[in-house]
């Protein structure tokens, strides 16, 4: 047993370089970094908007209380008397109607007062993003894009290549000519892939959260973290790692069982996304079922969403986290057992591979 553990460690070390620095794997990094870039862009845009609002507020100072005291029905003169001149004024005149838009800011929110024929008809307040609001956006991106596409296809790329890639390079036989049990080799390769994907995708999850929180003040972040925020961070990173564990096992086996990994990847993708429609017993034979149960925030299902989108983010019958972990590990171990069995009977026949 000790020798097997030592051999697993050595296989992991040997594989690490290939999984982290392979040219074939560049797109995995791009998949992982895509949401980081999206959230970074969002934060930079928010920072720019906030600076603009503050500059406008400095030029046209007005308090939050004064702006909130404005009620419908007031005339333009009355509004200006209470809160001063707006930082932006738009006028539209028609033969029988006149429309005026006055924009104010208290430095945090933007208030848009819409006048019709010199009467305030509508007040639109656009608040800056809050952490709870961004948490829902994050949950949506995490479930729609990150779990179902980025991690899924990242694991396809990394894990199917562990055996299949070496068959294509015609270098797998070097492993098979060492005094290492094939099952030990399969476990070592799986763990190497797991380390690589966990580092890449959990790192990306953390960076996404950091990028998204970039536009909040330090005290807001501290307050969020102390009131359950750390739990969210840990949960998202945990769900990411769990996705790598589950999908990794499936695609390691796929790389051993199929010559073309695209076919099993497509089948698994369809299976995972049909999860909600499956009978209860079959639901449990999927990874996404457990991942949804582990996700800390359920994305909002607003009226603008299609039925399919709503179904995708709604966990069928969420199970308790502990059972979700047990279920996921059971599925993974079963799939790895199939992979190890296949590895034991693996033959080298590069000409047909």
């Amino acid at each position, binding site marked *: 047993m000790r020798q097997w553990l030592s051999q697993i460690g*050595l296989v992991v070390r040997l594989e690490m370089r290939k999984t982290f620095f392979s040219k074939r794997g560049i797109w995995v990094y791009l998949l992982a970094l895509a949401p980081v870039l999206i959230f970074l862009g969002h934060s930079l845009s928010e920072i720019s908007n906030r600076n603009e609002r503050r500059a406008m507020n400095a030029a046209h100072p007005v308090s939050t209380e004064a702006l909130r005291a404005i009620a419908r029905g007031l005339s333009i003169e009355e509004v200006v008397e209470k809160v001063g001149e707006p930082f932006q004024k738009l006028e539209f005149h028609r033969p029988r109607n006149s429309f005026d838009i006055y924009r104010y800011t208290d430095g945090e929110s933007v208030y848009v007062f819409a006048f019709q024929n010199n009467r305030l008809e509508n007040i639109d307040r656009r608040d800056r993003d809050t952490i709870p609001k961004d948490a829902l956006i994050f949950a949506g991106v995490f479930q729609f894009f990150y779990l179902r596409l980025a991690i899924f296809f990242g694991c396809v790329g990394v894990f199917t290549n562990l055996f299949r890639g070496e068959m294509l390079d015609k*270098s797998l036989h*070097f492993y098979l000519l*060492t005094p*290492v049990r094939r099952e030990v080799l399969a476990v070592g390769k799986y763990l190497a892939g797991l380390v690589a994907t966990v580092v890449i995708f959990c790192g990306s999850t953390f960076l996404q959260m950091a990028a998204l929180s970039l536009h909040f003040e330090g005290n807001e972040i501290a307050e969020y973290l102390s009131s359950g925020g750390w739990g969210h961070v840990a949960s998202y990173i945990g769900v990411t790692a769990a996705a790598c564990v589950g999908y990794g096992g499936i695609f390691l086996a796929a790389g051993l069982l199929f010559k073309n990994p695209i076919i099993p990847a497509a089948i698994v993708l369809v299976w995972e996304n049909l999860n909600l429609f499956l009978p209860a017993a079959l639901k449990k034979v999927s990874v996404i079922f457990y991942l949804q149960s582990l996700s800390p925030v359920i994305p909002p299902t607003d009226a603008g969403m299609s039925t399919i989108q709503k179904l995708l983010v709604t966990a069928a019958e969420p199970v308790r986290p502990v059972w979700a972990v047990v279920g996921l590990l059971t599925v993974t171990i079963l799939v790895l057992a199939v992979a190890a069995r296949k590895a034991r009977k693996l033959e080298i*026949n590069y000409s047909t591979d």
Partner: protein
Amino acid sequence: MSDRVILDNVSRFYGEVLGVNRVTLSVPPGITSLVGPNGSGKTTLMNLIMGLVRPTRGDIRVLGISPTDPERLFRLCGYATQFDSFPRGMTGFQFISSYLRLSGMSHADCQRTTAFAIGRVNLGEAAHRKIAGYSKGMRQRIKLAQAIAHNPRVLVLDEPLNGLDPLVRSETIALFREFAAEGRHVIVSSHILHEVDTISDQVILMSNGYVVAEGQIRGVREEMSEHPMQVIIRCTRANLLASRVFEQENVVEVRLHADGGGLLVKTRDADRFYKALNHLALDGIGIESVAPADDNVNSLYEYLIGGEDR
């Protein structure tokens, strides 16, 4: 523990394509050559012995160990395959030491053993260069170094002399002899009988997946002595080499290549011819490659197999 490599009625089919059929062998220690034309089943037989493919029928034991037990088998066996591919980005030293570590050696032992193995195949200076930059001959030697690094009792080598220049070829053959003299098994394959006949304790001739003859080489050589062998040499100063080669008694015909960069030689005594060629190479004629002509090998096989029928 048995000291033999035993194949008992072994067959292997790839779908409907025959790999090897009903092979029964008991290979003793010493140098054993598996000889046959391309596609005769030599590589399949070696892959079966080393567990890289499984027999469709029959049983294989290597010193009493099943090829399905790599943990025990590869402590005793080394195999240099004919696949000319290597893990990406590795130096020769890293290539050998990385896989050697898997046998449970300590880091220090591994470094020492790797350096020793590389030294035995005279690749010391290139050890820390990337394998991707190696010549064909160097790649052959690094594969050989990997196969012998853990000091195996059974050494299986698929076409190990391919791509080696005459000097390295003779050094490599000396290494095989050294191993065999220590009571180990050295099983080498070749599609060129002349290449291995002088070094082999026994020869297994294969054709179309069947073992057509096996035994000691003497009988076969006597039959071959009347059959001239053709050798293709690519070199500089081909005219000069042609005139020098033709001075050899055993050479019956020399033909210059149309491009002036080589010649075809027919000889009745390949051993003497190769020895003489080594001397000529030292006289300033740059010899790029030496290869027996395939057509001749095939005709030799027809001759030998036909001889069996007579």
